[in-house]
């Protein structure tokens, strides 16, 4: 047997032997994309603070990553991260959590952090369902999907996260699926380097809860679904709303430079200190 170790193993806590996710879950792919982005940027894990909430994807950094991790209350990681960033503006603060945590319970924190344009990198793992608690309808669940809390199909419309955060004023917004891990890594790199609010929405497969609810089944058929149904944002201009309804629009939605909160705050502080 070979004794090869994984090249990203150096970023994880050595006593944790395996990931906490179900077999075939896409969270591990996203976890690798984050670590690979940090590896390619040659950044030090000690310069990062990872903040996560509650849910399957909140287990990505905590306790797996060998860095400062903060596992917070449900829906509130962005509120905690805002405090961390304002207190320690030199740190890279990254929020890693799921759609139920960040857009349902903590929806307003996400919108207002984007509006403030505070320098956070948010990796939002969107699996379209509340997976950890048994497969209840989430705001991101596609309309009509039968879940354990919507036995006749969910009647509500679906939350389209990336365009909403783009509209709220974020500096960088990208969406990829777990079928696009290389592109996701590239966008996470851009998000880390961006001075401002960066959201990377990672559409991920949940073969256990979502797979059962949608009859898509296992991880491979969900990845095939992502492959067949994702459309580049550059190609959507020629498509009408009906065509786009069942598609996953992937790509970079926003990439712009604008005034950032911690920088502005430091300037105000300096100005006030200088004045008698």
């Amino acid at each position, binding site marked *: 047997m070979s004794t090869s170790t994984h090249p990203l193993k150096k970023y994880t806590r050595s006593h944790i032997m395996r990931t906490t996710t179900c077999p075939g879950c896409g969270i591990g*792919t996203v976890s690798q994309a984050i670590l690979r982005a940090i590896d390619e940027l040659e950044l030090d894990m000690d310069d990062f603070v990872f903040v996560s909430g509650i849910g399957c994807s909140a287990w990505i950094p905590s306790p797996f990553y060998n860095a400062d991790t903060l596992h917070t209350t449900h829906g509130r990681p962005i509120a905690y991260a805002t405090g961390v960033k304002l207190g320690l503006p030199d740190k890279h603060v990254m929020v890693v959590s799921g759609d139920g945590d960040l857009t349902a319970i903590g929806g307003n924190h996400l919108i207002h952090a984007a509006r403030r344009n505070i320098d956070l990198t948010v990796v939002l793992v969107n699996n379209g369902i509340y997976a950890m608690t048994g497969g209840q309808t989430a705001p991101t669940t596609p309309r009509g999907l039968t879940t354990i809390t919507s036995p006749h199909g969910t009647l509500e419309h679906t939350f389209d996260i990336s365009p909403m955060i783009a509209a709220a004023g974020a500096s960088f917004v990208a969406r990829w699926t777990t*079928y696009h891990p290389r592109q996701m890594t590239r966008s996470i790199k851009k998000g880390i380097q961006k001075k401002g609010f960066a959201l990377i929405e990672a559409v991920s497969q949940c073969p256990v809860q979502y797979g059962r609810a949608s009859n898509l089944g*296992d991880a491979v058929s969900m990845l095939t679904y992502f492959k067949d149904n994702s459309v580049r944002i550059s190609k959507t201009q020629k498509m009408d709303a009906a065509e786009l309804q069942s598609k996953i629009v992937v790509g970079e939605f926003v990439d712009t430079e604008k005034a950032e909160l911690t920088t502005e705050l430091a300037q105000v502080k300096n100005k006030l200190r200088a004045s008698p």
Partner: protein
Amino acid sequence: MQKKSPKAKVTIIAESCKGMDDCGICRFVCPKDLFEACKEMNATGYYPPEIKDESDCSGCQNCMICCPDFAIVAEKKTDGAPNSLEDEDAEQ
């Protein structure tokens, strides 16, 4: 016929794997279809993959990048072939 030399050395970390039956992402993303289920169960009760014929490996590293359980290491030997997963804007 002369055997091709593999473009990467692929190592499977069996104890981290969650099985070909339940996951199987490595088999799905491999453009050369090199992964098949191993007959030996690991300590957690899953059947990890094994490589059929390493000499066919194109060195794309899809298996390592996509494996959700950090269970595959693909060390490139020479410059690998372009990957088969969609990567249209790789040159950006």
